[in-house]
C-alpha cells in the first residue's frame, strides 16, 4: 500500500481536563478556571477558553496565572476521572474503527484507510465522531491527512471544535508554509539554531541538503526533520503500544539547596517509586536503553542528564544527579524526575554487521 493513499486523522479533545470538570460541575462553564494547583507551588494543567483569553496557559505557574486573571478559579485535578473519561472516548472511537491509537490522554490517531462508512469519507466520519463526542459534552478538533505529523499539525488549524483536511497532493505545500516551531520535535533550542542559519519555514528545510541539517541538529534529528518536511512520515497507527519509557517525578514541598537533601529524596522516595513502576524486584534484572535525571530549578529552568546503558543502575542515577546539580548556579531545586528508556523488544532480533 502506498503511503500517500492512507487516511490518518488526529482527534484532539479541546481543553480536555477543563471540559471534563464542566461535565461534573456545569456552573464552571461561565467563569474562567484552571485545572491544577492554585497554591504557591501549583502549575496549570489546563485552562478553559475563558481563562485563556486572559493569557492563562498550560504549564504556567499557578501564582502567575492568578496574576494574569485575578478571578481565576482553581480545580484540583482528578486524573482517575480523566482516565476513565478518556477510556469512554476511546470506546466511542472504536465503534467507528478498530484502528485507534491513543497518543495521550486527550489525543487519538485514527487510521481510516479501510473505513467504508460515509462512502469512505474521512471528513464525514470525523464530523460524525465529533458529533457523538459533543453529545456526551466533549468538544474535539481534528486534522486529517495521509500521515501522522501533518494530521497532528492540521488539528490545530480549526481549534476549538473544528477540523481541517490536508489532501495528499498538498502535503508538501502545506509543510512548506509552516513555521518550524509547529513541527513536532523542533524545540526552542533547535529552533534557535535553525533560525540563526536562515531556516524559518518548512520550505527552507525542504530545499536544504540533509547533511547540512545533520550538522545543525545531529545525525538522527537532522535526518528526521528533513524527512518529515519532505512529507515522509511512514509511522503507522499502532493500536497496541509497548511502553517506551518509565519515569517518576515530583515537585518538592520545599525548594532544596543542599545536595544531601536531594540525594535523600532520591533514595527514600523516587528510586523505590521507579522500581515499583518498572514492576521488578531488582535493578539488575531491568534491561534498559538509557537513564535520565531531570532537575527543575527555582527559576523554572530545567536540565536533564542522560546516559545510555543496558542495565538499570541506581548508582548511575546518583552520578547523573550530581552532574545535573553542578548546573544549578546557586539556584534551588523544586522538582526532581527520574526515568529510564526501555529497549524495543524487537531491537534484539536482527543482528547488525560490524560496519564501523
Amino acid at each position, binding site marked *: 500500500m502506498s503511503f500517500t493513499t492512507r487516511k490518518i486523522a488526529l482527534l484532539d479533545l479541546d481543553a480536555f481536563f477543563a471540559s471534563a470538570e464542566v461535565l461534573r460541575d456545569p456552573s464552571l462553564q461561565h467563569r474562567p478556571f484552571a485545572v491544577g494547583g492554585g497554591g504557591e507551588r501549583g502549575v496549570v494543567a489546563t485552562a478553559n477558553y475563558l481563562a485563556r483569553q486572559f493569557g492563562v496557559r498550560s504549564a504556567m505557574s499557578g501564582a502567575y496565572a492568578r496574576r494574569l486573571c485575578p478571578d481565576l478559579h482553581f480545580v484540583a485535578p482528578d486524573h482517575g476521572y480523566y482516565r476513565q473519561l478518556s477510556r469512554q472516548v476511546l470506546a466511542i472511537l472504536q465503534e467507528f474503527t478498530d484502528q485507534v491509537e491513543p497518543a495521550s490522554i486527550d489525543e487519538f490517531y485514527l487510521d481510516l484507510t479501510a473505513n467504508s462508512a460515509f462512502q469512505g469519507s474521512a471528513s464525514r466520519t470525523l464530523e460524525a465522531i465529533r458529533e457523538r463526542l459533543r453529545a456526551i459534552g466533549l468538544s474535539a478538533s481534528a486534522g486529517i491527512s495521509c500521515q501522522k505529523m501533518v494530521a497532528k499539525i492540521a488539528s490545530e488549524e480549526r481549534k476549538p471544535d473544528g477540523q481541517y483536511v490536508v489532501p495528499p497532493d498538498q502535503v*508538501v505545500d502545506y509543510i*512548506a508554509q509552516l513555521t518550524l516551531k509547529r513541527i513536532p520535535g523542533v524545540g526552542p533550542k533547535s529552533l534557535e539554531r535553525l533560525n540563526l542559519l536562515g531556516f524559518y519555514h518548512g*520550505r527552507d528545510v*525542504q*530545499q536544504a541538503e*540533509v*547533511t547540512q541539517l*545533520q550538522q545543525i541538529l545531529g*545525525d*538522527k534529528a537532522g*535526518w528526521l526533520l528533513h*524527512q518529515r518536511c*519532505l*512529507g*515522509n512520515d511512514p509511522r503507522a497507527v499502532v493500536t497496541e503500544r509497548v511502553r517506551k519509557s518509565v519515569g517518576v517525578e515530583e515537585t518538592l514541598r520545599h525548594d532544596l539547596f543542599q545536595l544531601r537533601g536531594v540525594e535523600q529524596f532520591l533514595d527514600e522516595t523516587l528510586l523505590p517509586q521507579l522500581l515499583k513502576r518498572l514492576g521488578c524486584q531488582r535493578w539488575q534484572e531491568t534491561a534498559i536503553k538509557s537513564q535520565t535525571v531531570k532537575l527543575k530549578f527555582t527559576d523554572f529552568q530545567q536540565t536533564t542528564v542522560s546516559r545510555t546503558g543496558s542495565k538499570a543502575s541506581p548508582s548511575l542515577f546518583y552520578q547523573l544527579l550530581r552532574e545535573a546539580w553542578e548546573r544549578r548556579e546557586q539556584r534551588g531545586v523544586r522538582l526532581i524526575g527520574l526515568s529510564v528508556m526501555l529497549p524495543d523488544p*524487537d531491537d*534484539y*532480533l*536482527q*543482528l*547488525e*554487521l*560490524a*560496519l*564501523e
Partner: protein
Amino acid sequence: MKFTVSRDALLKPLQVVSGAVERRHTIPILSNALIQVSGDEIRLTGTDLEVELVARCAVDKAVDGQVTVPAKKFLDIIRSLPDGATVEFSAAEDKALVRSGRSKFSLATLPAEDFPNIDDWDSDIQLVTSQTILKGLIEATHFSMANQDVRYYLNGMLFETDANVLRTVATDGHRLAMSSCAIGQPNLTGRQVIVPRKGVMELMRLLDSPDSEIKIAIGTNHVRVETNGISFTSKLVDGRFPDYRRVLPQGGDKVVIADRELLKHACSRAAILSNEKYRGVRVSLSSGEMCLTANNPEQETAEEIIEVDYQGDSLEIGFNVSYLIDVLNTVQGSKVKLTLSGPDASGLIEDSEDDSSLYVVMPMRL
C-alpha cells in the same frame, strides 16, 4: 521555437528524462522538463538536482529555442497519442502548444533560463565497458542498499575501481552484497564513490540494450554514464563508505551446498507463516539435511526439509527469510554455497561455481 516529430520517436527519450523528475516538487521548475531545439535535434533534460538525465531526438521543421514544460503531463499526452501520430510542438510567451491530428493541448511553461544546471565538473577517471557488465554489477547488489537510513552513506551503492576491476557494494547494516568484474582496463586509478539510491535505480532503468557500449566518467562529486545518446549524471554521496572487507566472514567451518531453486522455493513457502514484520525463519542444519521452520504470532507454523550436501556438526541459526530470498533470486547458478560458523555470526552465500558475487547476511536471534 518549434519542431515536428513522430510520437514514437519522442516517447522513449521523454520517458527517460521524466525518470529524474520528482512528482513531489519543492521547487516548481523541477517538475518540468527542459526542451532545447538546435538545428534538427532536440535535447530533453530532467533533473531533481541530484540526478540529471539528458536525451536527444531528431526532429523536423525545427526553429531554435528553449522552454520548460510540465514533464509528467507532457509525457502523459505523448504516451496517449496513437502509434505513428505526428506531433507538432511550438512555444511562445508562457504557453507551449502541442498538436497532433485533431488534438490540441496548451501547456503552461516556465522560462528555460531558470532551469537549474549541474555545475561544470571534470572527470578524473574514464572507463568504457558494456551495458551488460554494468547492469550485471548493479543487479547483483542493488537490493541490499539501505533506504532512508540515518547513515546516509548507506543509501546508495559503492562503486570501486581497483586494478582492472570494477566492483559494486551495497549494505543496509544487516546484509551486504558485493560483486566484481574485470573490465580489461589495466592501470585504473583506485577510487571509491557512492552513487545515491535514486541514481542507481534510474541508471538500472536505462540499461536496456545489453550489447551497447557505455562510457563512465567519475569526478570528485559527480559520475556520468553515457550510452545510446542518453547522458545520465548523478551527484555522489559525500561520505565514507564503511570498509566492507572487514565484514566479509572468515573461517566459517560449516559449508553447505544446496540446490538453489529447491532452497528458494522452500524459503518462499516457509516465509508465508513467518512473522510478517520480522520475517524470521529458523534454519536447522544436520548431516545431509536442512530444515526450515517458521511461526507467526497466531501460532501457525511451517516446516520445510530439503536435502543438502553437508557433513558436520548440527547448527541452528535464524535469518530474515526475505534476505535469503533476495540472494537466491539474484544468484544465477544452479547450486549455492552457504558458509556458516555459529548462530551469532554472519553467513556467507555465493554461487558454488562463481565467486564474483558475495552475499553476507547477519542472523536473527530467535
